[in-house]
């Protein structure tokens, strides 16, 4: 009320966004960056928290979390829970986060058989034995999509989702709309 009449309106608080890749290939992140110069416009509206783009190691309170990749080891589950705890809105990004994707192709094989073949028996592959350093996260028996472990608010399908789909999701959320992709942007491959 006492503010000077000619003062510019207070800048709206930037939305805080965290991103991560669990059992993914970072392809979704690359596709996100394919929004090209629109990222300049986006950075007027959002700021990044934990993300491979900032190298911040842990997630603080955020408005939005983008999760690429499914869950293939114990660390993936910890990171996912950290995101869910801190992000008001959590989005599963890409085929792997949504249905396990390529890593889930190991699900019909026995985990021990896979490790033994890769690290012990298969000719021309490493023969150093199955790694057991305590710092290595233990693999899960099966790869799982993230909605099997935490509540997921929105899904962005695709392998990867097209840059325009990222743009649509973010601009819809920034405008307070329910994200809607429609034909051409919604695809599973």
């Amino acid at each position, binding site marked *: 009320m006492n503010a000077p009449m000619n003062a510019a309106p207070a800048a709206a608080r930037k939305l805080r966004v965290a991103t991560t890749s669990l059992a993914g290939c970072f392809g979704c992140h690359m596709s996100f960056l394919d929004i090209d110069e629109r990222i300049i416009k986006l950075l007027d509206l959002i700021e990044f928290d934990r993300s491979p783009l900032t190298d911040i190691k842990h997630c603080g309170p955020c408005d939005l979390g983008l999760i690429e990749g499914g869950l293939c080891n114990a660390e993936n589950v910890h990171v996912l829970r950290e995101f869910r705890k801190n992000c008001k809105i959590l989005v*599963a990004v890409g*085929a792997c986060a*949504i*249905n*396990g*994707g*390529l890593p*889930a*192709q190991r*699900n*019909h094989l026995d985990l021990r058989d896979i490790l033994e073949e890769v690290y012990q028996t298969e000719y021309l592959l490493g023969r150093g034995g199955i790694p057991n350093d305590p710092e290595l996260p233990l693999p899960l028996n*099966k790869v*799982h*999509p993230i*909605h*099997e472990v935490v509540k*997921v608010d*929105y*899904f962005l*399908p695709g*392998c990867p989702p097209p840059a325009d789909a990222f743009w649509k999701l973010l601009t819809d959320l920034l405008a307070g709309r329910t994200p*809607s992709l429609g*034909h*051409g942007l*919604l*695809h*599973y*491959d």
Partner: protein
Amino acid sequence: MNATNTFQLDGVDIPFTPGQTIMQAATAHGVYIPHLCWHPDFSAHGSCKLCTVKIKGRFGASCTIEAQAGMKVENRIAEIDDKRRTLLQMLFVEGNHFCPSCEKSGNCTLQATAYELNMMSPHFDMFYPDRPVDASHPDILLDFNRCIMCSLCVAASSEVDGKNVFYMGGRGILGRRVHISSESGKLGDTDFALTDRAAHICPVGVILPKRKGFEVPIGKRSYDQAPISAHVKKAAP
């Protein structure tokens, strides 16, 4: 055509000839009713339930109900589309539907129907069933991971090809799928041929001609160009 031979589908008058089902009349008129196990060339199966519509407050499969003059049918209403989406999600979790690695992607009826119904996730927990492929035939690959048990290959092989190569078998949600009627259970031990109707009827990526994979680039495949409802509209006379 008799002027009284019309019914209403979501408020639109659809003409029909007596004996036609709601699905047949709607499709001939270019109106899309979501479906998976129905095919215009074969007798209706009524098993996938995607084509469920609402008539006077009751649900029924539009591929098996005959159109009646003056009938009021509800099709693309949120109440039914929500149930259809749930049916699709159940199909997606009980098989192994990994679109990025599937040759049928972009031309797949299951996928296109899921796009049409705005299916954003499988919602349920994944089953990840173990379903080995059958590559024994020189010209055809069978990938059972994607079978949705529509039975169209069974119908095509028996009704058109006169061969009965396929049958539905097995028990339980994980065991039931299409099987091969040879002693070994392998397609390579049947007289199945690339020229059979059944070789080209599969709506998903189970029955695939070999050496044809990914022929059409992404962006130019059937359902890249237009959604499945637009295809039905375009195909109508």
